[in-house]
Every structure is written in C-alpha cells, then in structure tokens.
C-alpha cells in the first residue's frame, strides 16, 4: 500500500515538473531548459548517493548490468525534449489521456513478457480508466464547441 501511495505522489511531482519545465523552456529556450534540469538532477542525485553511501552497489554489480538498462537515461532526455514541445500545443487533459494509452498498453505488455505479472484486474481497471478519460474529453470538447459558437455570434 505504501508503494501505491508513492506512485500516486510520483504523479503529482510529474505534473508540477511538467508545468515548471514548460515555463523554464519558454524563458531559457528548450535546450537550456533540459540542460538546467539535468544539471540540477545530477548534482542532487549525487548528494543523495553520498548520503546513502552504505547502500551503494559494488563495482562488480555495476559491471554486470546489461547495457540496455542504461538506455533509460538517454530515453529520459528524449521524453523531456518531446514533452517541452507537446505541452504548449496540446491541452493538459489530452496529454494525460494519450500518454495514458501509450503507457498502460506498453507496461501491460512488458509486465506480461518480462516480469510475468498479468492480471485481469489491471486490464479491466485500465479499460475503465480509459473510458472515464474519453468521457471527460467529450465534456471538454462540448464546452470548446460552445465557446466557438459564442464567439461566432459575437
């Protein structure tokens, strides 16, 4: 249950980050925005490691890491980059919805293939989640069209 709460918290930090990064990119340019982001992140994760010196892995453990696992860091830059392009162009609710579809589908496949976890509950829950998102998007659409009509009349 703790981990479920932590995952929820992750969602909140992601949105705050997304907003601040959008503003930062507008101010300093996209590239510099990402540079500042990673500079701070590298420094603060280094401090975190220094504080947790006892739980550091051995050199041989690090050497045994399969190469693809290192790709996460590179993909991270790519997604941050993409994010900064998308956020000013697409309403936040759509960003959440489309990323949801991509993420849930992909993660269900990965869970099934690599972690051997697959439950009907996750699929049913995911589908319900999606239905709710679509319903909300429809409400938003209706209001947008209403606003358009208003502005046409005016």
């Amino acid at each position, binding site marked *: 249950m703790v*981990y*479920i709460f*932590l*995952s*929820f918290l*992750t*969602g*909140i930090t*992601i949105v*705050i*980050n997304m907003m*601040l990064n*959008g503003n930062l990119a507008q*101010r300093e*340019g996209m*590239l510099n925005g990402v*540079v*500042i982001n*990673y500079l*701070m992140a*590298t420094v603060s*994760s280094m401090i*975190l*490691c220094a504080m947790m010196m006892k739980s*550091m*892995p051995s050199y041989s453990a*690090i050497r045994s*890491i399969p190469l693809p*696992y290192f790709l*996460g*860091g*590179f993909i991270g*830059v790519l*997604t*941050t980059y*993409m994010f900064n*392009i998308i956020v000013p*162009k697409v309403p936040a*609710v759509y960003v*959440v919805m*489309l*990323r949801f579809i*991509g*993420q*849930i589908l*992909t*993660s269900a496949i990965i869970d099934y293939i*690599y*972690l051997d*976890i697959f439950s009907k509950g*996750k699929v*049913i*829950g995911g589908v*319900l*989640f999606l239905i*709710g*998102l679509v319903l*909300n998007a429809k*409400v*938003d659409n209706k209001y947008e069209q209403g606003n358009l009509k208003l502005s046409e009349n005016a």
Partner: protein
Amino acid sequence: MYKNLALINGIILAVMIFLNGMLAIITGPYMSTFIYHVLGFILIMTISIIKKNRFSNLKKVPLMFFLPGILSVITIFLNNISIPEIGLTLAIGVTLFGQLIMSSLVEHFGLFGMPVNRFKKEKILGFSIISLGTIIMIAL
C-alpha cells in the same frame, strides 16, 4: 501531429520506466537514480555542444527553475523503489491517476500561469469511472 507525439511519448516513457526499474533491482534505487541522470546529462551536453548552444547564465535563472531537476530526482527515485515491488502496470496506472488529479487542480485554479479551466460537474461521472478503474487495478 502533436497528439501523436503525446502517444509515442507514453510508449517510450513506459519503456524508460521499465529499464530504470530493472536497473534499480541490480544497483538499488539511489545508484540507479544517479546513473539515469548522469547519462541524461552527458547526452544533453553532447547535443548542446553539437548544436553550438549558448548556455544560460545560471546566476540569472530564478531559483524556482532549479526545482524541476530536484523533482525529477524524486520522481525517478519513487519509481525505482515502487516498480520492483508492485510491477510496472500498477505503478504507472496509479501514477497516471495522480497526474490526472494534479492536472485537473492545475487547470481548475490556473496554477503555474496556465489558463483557468474550471472543473465541470459533467466530469464527475468520468472521474468516478476512472477512480473505480484505479481501485480495480489495485484490488484485483
């Protein structure tokens, strides 16, 4: 076009979170968070140098904008400790639920300079179904 990008963004995000989680299983959450960010930093610096980017004067950047880097560490760290315990789908599902709640709050109150977009009562049904979906994901 930008909406397609958002979908692709989701797919590669899931792959990224998975790779980080696997890394965390081997190195522990602290080291994997560091590895993730240091590699990202190397990549973005390389891109910057190739593109002959003029770097910002860090002294002129408002303090607030140093927060995303720290938040990013918290995000990756929380991911890295949760995924080995509860799996990818559940972690991502609940994270997205958190994102949805937070982005609705952002829009409703117009936080971070976003345009105000008040919560509509018609959305209560959608949010109830989403909440039910999340509960089913957790419980079953």
